């Protein structure tokens, strides 16, 4: 396992060749070791504040940042290995899209979107008997892992959350939900989950599920 801030740092040299039929990339590290796209068996993609080697001293910092973001997005889409998540472009560039962005997917999967109060500028749930109880979950492929206690009578909604994640083109998604009288409303979404927001046992379960997802995906790729 190797952690890489991004392939364009001061200590790496990145080259990605692409033509009508082929794609190949190599990252050469400062110590002379290298990593080709075929050496990578899986990528867990995290959001980083990518910058160029000397961009902090450059007037072109914004431009370089945009170039790096564009290159990373395309490169992860080019990789033949499992990538969690291979995010669509709109989710890559819309850093924190408002919940309304997801409305078509909410509707398709039988989830409710919370009312959006523009004056307050934050999500609020209507028609809710107090107190409002939020539950945090992490969907990892076919698993829903709850932080703290699993809400009661949630079975059919778990299927909706899994399907919602799949329809969004994701295999990992942090979701905060609220059970209302009308159904399950989504309050927050994050395709780059922060495990520190989960209890310790949930963190372990998420990690295990991720390992299983990588292993199963590679097994499937290997058998093809």
């Amino acid at each position, binding site marked *: 396992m190797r952690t890489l801030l991004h*392939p*364009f740092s*001061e200590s*790496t*040299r*990145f*080259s*990605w*060749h*692409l*033509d*009508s*039929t082929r*794609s190949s990339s190599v990252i*050469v590290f400062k110590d002379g070791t290298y990593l080709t796209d075929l050496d990578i068996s899986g990528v867990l993609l995290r959001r980083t504040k990518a910058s*160029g*080697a*000397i*961009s902090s001293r*450059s007037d*072109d910092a*914004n*431009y*370089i*940042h*945009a*170039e*790096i*973001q*564009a*290159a990373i*997005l*395309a*490169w992860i*889409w*080019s990789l033949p290995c499992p990538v969690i998540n291979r995010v*669509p*472009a*709109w989710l*890559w*560039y*819309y*850093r924190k*899209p*408002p919940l*309304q*962005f997801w*409305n*078509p997917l909410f*509707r398709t999967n039988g989830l*409710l*979107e919370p*009312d*959006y109060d*523009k004056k307050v500028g934050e999500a609020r749930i209507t028609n809710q008997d107090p107190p409002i109880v939020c539950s945090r979950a992490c969907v990892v492929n076919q698993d829903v892992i709850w932080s703290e206690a699993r809400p009661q009578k949630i079975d059919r909604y778990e299927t909706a959350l899994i399907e919602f994640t799949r329809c969004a083109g994701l295999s990992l998604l942090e979701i905060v939900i609220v059970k209302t009288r009308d159904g399950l409303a989504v309050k927050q979404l994050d395709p780059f989950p922060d495990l520190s927001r989960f209890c310790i046992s949930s963190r372990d379960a998420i990690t295990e599920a991720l390992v299983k997802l990588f292993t199963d995906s590679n097994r499937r790729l290997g058998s093809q």
Partner: protein
Amino acid sequence: MILICGSSLDPVIMFLRACWDSEHLAYRLLDLGCSEGKSAVQVDYRGWPMNGFIDGGDWRLDVTELTGVFFHSIDCRSEKVANNAYAACDAEIAALLNNLPCKVANRPAAGMSNRSKPLQALHIRECGFRIPKTLVTNDPAAAKRFYEECDGKVIFKSIGGVRSIVRKLSPRYLERLPLLRNGPTQFQALIAGDDIRVHVVGDRCFATRIRCSSVDYRFAWEEGFSLEMETTALGGDVTSRCLRLSQKLGLTFAGIDLKENSRGEYYCFEANATPGFSFYESSTCQPISSALGEFLGKP
């Protein structure tokens, strides 16, 4: 009713309005350039179909009256906001356009693929187009090798959505390759031939052939080159490939950049989600504006 979303001072919107006015086409303009941050949209997203209205100051339009929306936000393409689409597009407007049940040319979310040219290249080749030999790198030595492999016939341009001038990698620029350590650049084998811009409107295509000696014909006049544009026919199944690409990217309106080489092979470079079609229409008289009106005016 058609809604135009954008700035009243945007030359593309001015051109489109002039055409639609001459055709007595009914539309409203939501002038994003003059909104001064005031909310002009009141929509309840909870129901389906969604309900609400758009307030343009001297008019008010129920969202159920809309047949189509033309969205052209030039601010979104500026370098300043390249990484923060909301800053210029306004989250409220973007959410509205992404959710409206009518036709939208284009939904902001669909246009995002144009912010990464190599990502589009991956989609482009899946649609059966050739793409030029490409290198994305921050390694000066790799760029130099690529230059030699391509016999010195190489161009370079931005990777992302920031508009840049395509330039030939001349010996003068080779001296600057060490600057690649600051950040990556995209290099491509130079494809000789005519540029072709295809505007896709729904399921119709309008192709313009551009004859120009400049590497980037958009800046031909500024660089002292002549430029000829004419309506052209597309060979083989190029039209269906253009339609497939637009559909794949979720674009109902696209400006697709092609190049046809001397062997009649078509290379595709990108699909613009906010194409400056007025530049081509004013030279060739192709009825792109009318087609847009027809497309967006029908439910």
